[in-house]
Structures are given as C-alpha cells and as structure tokens.
C-alpha cells in the first residue's frame, strides 16, 4: 500500500511537469518525484515486525527478521542529498532565468532560444 501511495505521487509529479508552465512548478514536481521514489525504496526494505537497524542495550542480538533491511535506508540517505544538490542548482538557475528573461513562466519569457 505504501507502494501505491508512492506510485501515485510519481504520477502526480509527472503530470505536474507536463502541464505546468511555471518553471518553479517544474522544480517542485521534480522534488515530489524524488520524495516518492525515496518512500518506494524504503518500502522495499520494510520487514513486518522488524526494528530499526541499530544495536542498542535492549536489542543486542542479531537475528533474521528482527531488523528491517538497512541497505535501502543507506541508499535513500544518498538519494536525499543528491536531490538537495539538484534542487539548489535548479533554484539558482531560476534566479538567473528570471533576471535574463524577466519571467519564469514559459509563455511570458522574452528572448528564449531553444
């Protein structure tokens, strides 16, 4: 069911990218897709009844089925940070697009060469 949620979110993100004419919305849609993919990845590592993969005084022993899969979590840590990097570059590009073309709306931008 978490899978379903994240897939629907991906769909909404794609829809937003294709319909919106404001470039800021594109960035936001991209960020929604990122979050959705992260949720999906974590969901693939969830084990029913498993605990967070940290050894503590009350959880000192290893056993299969006791912990959730730690590898997807490590991957998502990386993916989140990558998302931030992309977003920061995108935001700074938007600032400059606004300065150069005097708008960030695809329909109102002046002097755009594709």
């Amino acid at each position, binding site marked *: *069911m*978490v899978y*379903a*949620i994240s897939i*629907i*979110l991906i769909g*909404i*993100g794609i*829809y*937003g990218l294709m*319909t*919106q*004419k*404001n470039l*800021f*919305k594109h*960035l*936001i*849609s991209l*960020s*929604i897709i990122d*979050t959705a993919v*992260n*949720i999906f990845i*974590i*969901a693939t*590592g*969830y084990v029913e009844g*498993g*605990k*967070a*993969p*940290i050894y503590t005084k009350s959880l000192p022993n290893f056993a299969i089925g006791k912990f*959730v899969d730690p590898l997807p*979590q490590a991957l*998502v*840590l990386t993916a*989140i*940070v990558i*998302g*931030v990097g992309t*977003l*920061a570059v995108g*935001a*700074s590009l*938007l*600032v400059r697009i*606004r300065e150069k073309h005097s*708008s*960030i*709306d695809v329909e*109102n931008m002046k002097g755009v060469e594709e």
Partner: protein
Amino acid sequence: MSALIWLAGGIMIVAAVFAVEAKKILDAVIAMSALSLVSVFLFIAMRAPDVAITEASVGAGLVTAVLLVTLFRMKGGDDK
C-alpha cells in the same frame, strides 16, 4: 497502523496535487514542505530513523528555506 499510513498517504497525495495546481508559488512551496514532513512520518513508520532525521532536516527544512529565499529574490515569482 495501516489506517494511519493510509491517512498519511492521503494527506501526501492531496498536498502533492495542491503543490502542482496551486495558483501561488508560495502555496506550492508550503505544500511541498508539508509533503516532506508527512513523508518523515512514513519513514518512521517504516523503521528508518536515519532517513527520517535527514529528510526532516534536509528535505523539509533547508530545501524549503532555499526555495523561499529564491522566491523572495524573484519578488514572489510569477502568479500562474
């Protein structure tokens, strides 16, 4: 638990639709930030505290701040 997850998912989907369709960019940024925050709950529910902390500080915190500052620099952006 599963009812809570459905609730969180519902909120996220509504927030996502709102973020995509909102008339004002500011609202869209806030909705996106809300989506990030709710996803933190999902991460905790799926026993991923490391990811939850990172998403809370990075995804919901800094990214929103950076986008808001950008928006301020663009004088509120263009309304749709």
